[in-house]
């Protein structure tokens, strides 16, 4: 059988899947057509879901065109993007004027909800978890906002540039106690995290590498909220890092770390888990084609993400239900899927007890994701999140009440409403029993909102 006709079984174990097949581009066929379900999967993974109109529009374009659009490669109506950026800038100014970092989360939720480039926002969220920096220590909202902009600017760009910029980011250096780094006392904190958490992973460096790298960063300081190099405090002696000799400056040292053979595997593994599945851990060989694409493209994040999203593994449908939605995903899936808007300040507060406060990651490792999102208290909390959000007096659907919006969507029966919700919000279809139970409840209550809340409290809803 030629590779073009080969398919990936939905139930296949990851180790049994041929990497070459997995990462080859998916093409629609009569057996695997470009459908609403596949489009919904792509929108859930590349962004935060989509409404029915968007899903229907997506299947009128080719899968690759859809991926290009999500990545922002395909030229969009620039006036939409300009208007959005102008609104976002006004909101940012307003939030900064208040001087409270906690309000930044509402600003970002506004972006996550309304951005015409959801993949860039999703990747910004990914990098926020990767280069985790917490506002409880940084305090200054201006610095947190600036870091967020740096992450967004480089979200799909060169990882090399990203690491160079984040290494000089004032919020990051404050968070990792590197506000002053003197040659007499080189601070090893940032050097260690750069290798362990940001680029290489555990076991790929030695304590000596940490010490040498820390020497390269001496003279790096933050003064008046700006990065500054103080040559008088720089240790200009010779250093060897990760097998690279004669390294001197911090910039050269970062380059050495990024060029290390472990970096591509480390980054693509994280991207694979973020976009494809929480479990199981893929083997290095399985990720090798992605790592090669990363290196060959001079560490372009876009090259890897594009390969992931348009791959046979993704669009065959194999990843369906293999990721647990983060709390932000839960909220935004509902809102984006139903063209809804809500009180974002209230949403920010509702996300806190569920373990995902934007700008306040739990520690320098960021959010673990996967099964860690779910425990006995967060499971109830996630159901309550949807309940509180949908019942919030400021929540509107396409600018209207839910019943008015349903009328406009020509949803007139409980069956029609459930079908809409199923295709828009769920990764996997409901069982017949679940469908019957929901419909009989819906008939007795005659309330669209109750059916929505009940559907979102089902375990299926928490899978992506």
């Amino acid at each position: 059988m030629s590779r073009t006709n080969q398919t990936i079984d939905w139930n296949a174990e990851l180790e049994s899947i041929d990497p070459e097949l997995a990462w080859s581009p998916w093409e629609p066929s009569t057996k695997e057509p470009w459908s609403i379900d596949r489009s919904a999967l792509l929108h859930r993974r590349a962004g935060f879901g989509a409404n029915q109109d968007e899903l229907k529009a997506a299947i009128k374009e080719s899968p690759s065109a859809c991926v290009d659009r999500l990545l922002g490669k395909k030229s969009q109506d620039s006036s939409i993007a300009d208007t959005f950026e102008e609104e976002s800038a006004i909101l940012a100014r307003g939030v900064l004027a208040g001087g409270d970092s906690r309000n930044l989360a509402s600003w970002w939720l506004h972006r996550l909800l309304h951005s015409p480039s959801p993949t860039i926002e999703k990747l910004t969220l990914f990098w926020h978890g990767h280069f985790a920096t917490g506002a409880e220590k940084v305090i200054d909202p201006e610095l947190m906002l600036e870091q967020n902009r740096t992450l967004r600017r480089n979200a799909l760009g060169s990882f090399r540039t990203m690491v160079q910029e984040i290494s000089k980011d004032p919020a990051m250096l404050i968070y990792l106690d590197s506000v002053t780094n003197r040659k007499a006392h080189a601070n090893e904190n940032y050097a260690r995290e750069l290798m362990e958490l940001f680029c290489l992973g555990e076991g790929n460096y030695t304590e000596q590498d940490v010490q040498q790298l820390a020497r390269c960063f001496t003279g790096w300081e933050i003064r008046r909220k700006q990065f500054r190099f103080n040559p008088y405090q720089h240790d200009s002696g010779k250093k060897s890092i990760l097998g690279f000799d004669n390294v001197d400056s911090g910039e050269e040292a970062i380059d050495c770390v990024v060029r290390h053979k472990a970096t591509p595997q480390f980054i693509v593994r994280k991207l694979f888990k973020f976009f494809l599945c929480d479990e199981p851990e893929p083997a290095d060989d399985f990720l090798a084609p992605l790592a090669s694409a990363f290196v060959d493209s001079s560490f372009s994040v876009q090259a890897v993400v594009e390969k992931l999203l348009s791959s046979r593994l993704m669009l065959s449908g194999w990843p369906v239900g293999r990721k647990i939605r983060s709390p932000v995903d839960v909220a935004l899936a509902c809102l984006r899927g139903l063209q809804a808007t809500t009180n974002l300040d209230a949403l920010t507060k509702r996300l806190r007890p569920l373990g995902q406060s934007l700008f306040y990651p739990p520690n320098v490792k960021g959010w673990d994701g996967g099964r860690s999102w779910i425990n006995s208290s967060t499971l109830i909390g996630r159901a309550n999140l949807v309940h509180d959000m949908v019942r919030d007096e400021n929540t509107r659907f396409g600018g209207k009440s839910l019943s008015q919006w349903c009328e406009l969507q020509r949803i007139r029966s409980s069956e029609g409403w459930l079908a809409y919700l199923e295709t828009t919000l769920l990764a996997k279809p409901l069982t017949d029993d679940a469908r019957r139970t929901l419909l009989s409840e819906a008939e007795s209550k005659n309330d669209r909102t109750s059916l929505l809340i009940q559907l979102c409290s089902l375990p299926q809803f928490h899978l992506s």
Partner: protein
Amino acid sequence: MLQNRLHVLTLFLFVCVSSLVSWPSASHGQNERVDDDPLYWMPASTLVYLKLEPIGSLLSHPLRTRIQADETIHALWKSEPLKELRGGIAVSELVLGAKLETLARDLTKFGAHLCINDQGEIVFLSRTRSARWLKDYIQKIVTLARGDNNKNKPGKVAETTYRGIRGYEVNKLIVAQKDDWLLVANKPEIAKATVDQMLDKNKESLDASPFYQRAKEFAERFDSNSNGSIATVYLDLDNIREAKAGWTKKIFSNKPREFVAELLFGGLLATLDKSPMAIGRLALNESGANMEILSPTQPGWFAGTREFYVGPNSKGVAEPTWKTPRGLASLSTYRNLSELWLRAGDLFDQKVNDQLAQVDNTLTTLFSGRDFGTDILGALEPQLQIVSASQFFPNALKPSIRLPSFALVGKLKEPDSMQRDLKRIFQSFVGFLNVAGAMEGQPQLDLESEIVEDAKIYWAEYVVEKDRKYENGLPVQFNFSPSVAFRGDRVVVSSTLALARQLISEIANPIANHDSSLTSPMLNTSVELDLAMIRDALLDNRDQLITQNMLEKGHSKKEAQGEVDVLLGLMQLLGSASGQLSFDEQVRLKIQVDLAGKESVQANLDKSSNGAEAR
């Protein structure tokens, strides 16, 4: 469906309120009849009696004509955020077959009356245009409620006849007609009792009840001005306190008082706890609307625990308010804060007292070991004023949120010693702010002082860092330049130097600057708001309001702008508001809201358009 949700009382109120905002049509002449008096029909057990004047008189009031003639209101009425209200009115008019304004006039042609008795039963009586008109009107309402247009889910309307009078139960309300009177009640018992009285007039009624007789006498004695009255309410406080109905318990429950509530309303609550009655009146005059609430009072009711509020023998009097340029609000009051602080054990429950003890400890530390209740608050005379003014930022670099300034003006009992203490405390406070601010990278305060004639001013200003760009405007701290100033026995504690200077200068010339309109000898509290200036202050922060609206309501920028501009547009109509509370043989609370003069509306319009252009 509209038909199924129709609620008779809601509809009635909707008709009344909507007719005020909807656009004018020809007014009707009035032909009042006075041969029936609902006072004979209302039960003697009435606790609350509300008398409404004919809506027609309100609709033809010059004030309404003035509002309707305003171009801003025209523009607002046609704006997007009010589209739904316009639509709702249009649909209602279509369904009811008449303009809402006309309906409201006809429905209350000769006034309306509402009473609530000791069982929580409510009856509403309104004398309408004519019996025939009313019959048609009730029929329309009943038809709508039955949902004749929606056969699948008809509304529930029970029909009954009592002593020859046909009644309908619509959404738990009883609606009936006696001649040209409309009767609406929430319980069958009161509906029947009212019908009995209308037919027989042989039972004790409100007119003869001791409460109403006393209230009428009290009103005649003290309620000097009832011109332009549109609503009057009589409250039987004695019986409300004793009533079995649950709703009264909510008002007179012995819940522990909040500190701020006690400070603001303690004296009023003492009156409510003892006074036999209260009368309220809402009236319109040429310049705006005013509300007055009167209730008998006695100095003995405050003796002990609440003397801090009214002074010994209720003789504590507030001073006339200070006027400042760009003033937003001023409050002048008589409150013996030291006495309130030291009597906290009698006034509050244990939880509040524990919190106050903590605050007392912190403040005693902050005030260098001087006891806060005795030494600091006790150093002030009970006459206190709080003044707020909008700020002017002459430099291009302004705070991104522009807050008004505010100040406390007090009189020191021992100025010589307290001035030194307060100066030292202020210096320590600035030092504390600088240390705390430095730890969090916040801007620093620079301490200064000046002597102007016989006044001393100590202040601190935030320092603008020369090499910083402030791309998003100055931080919010730059709204403050904390100041403390002294002139004679007066002390001013102000959030800004400008306001402190202004007040110190005005204190030098008290006669010219005091408001001579405050003539009541027993004035306890006076509040004045310059609503036009408040609007200006909000307009200054329009972008911030829009941001807040977008994040809190999930609105788009356009929607948020629309909503904020409606609010600012409505405020454009308003000129000022004032409130006065005085204690004599009666407690009297007066609130007046005045519309802006035409000139200031135009000035506001110019300001708005200039602001919009600048943005």
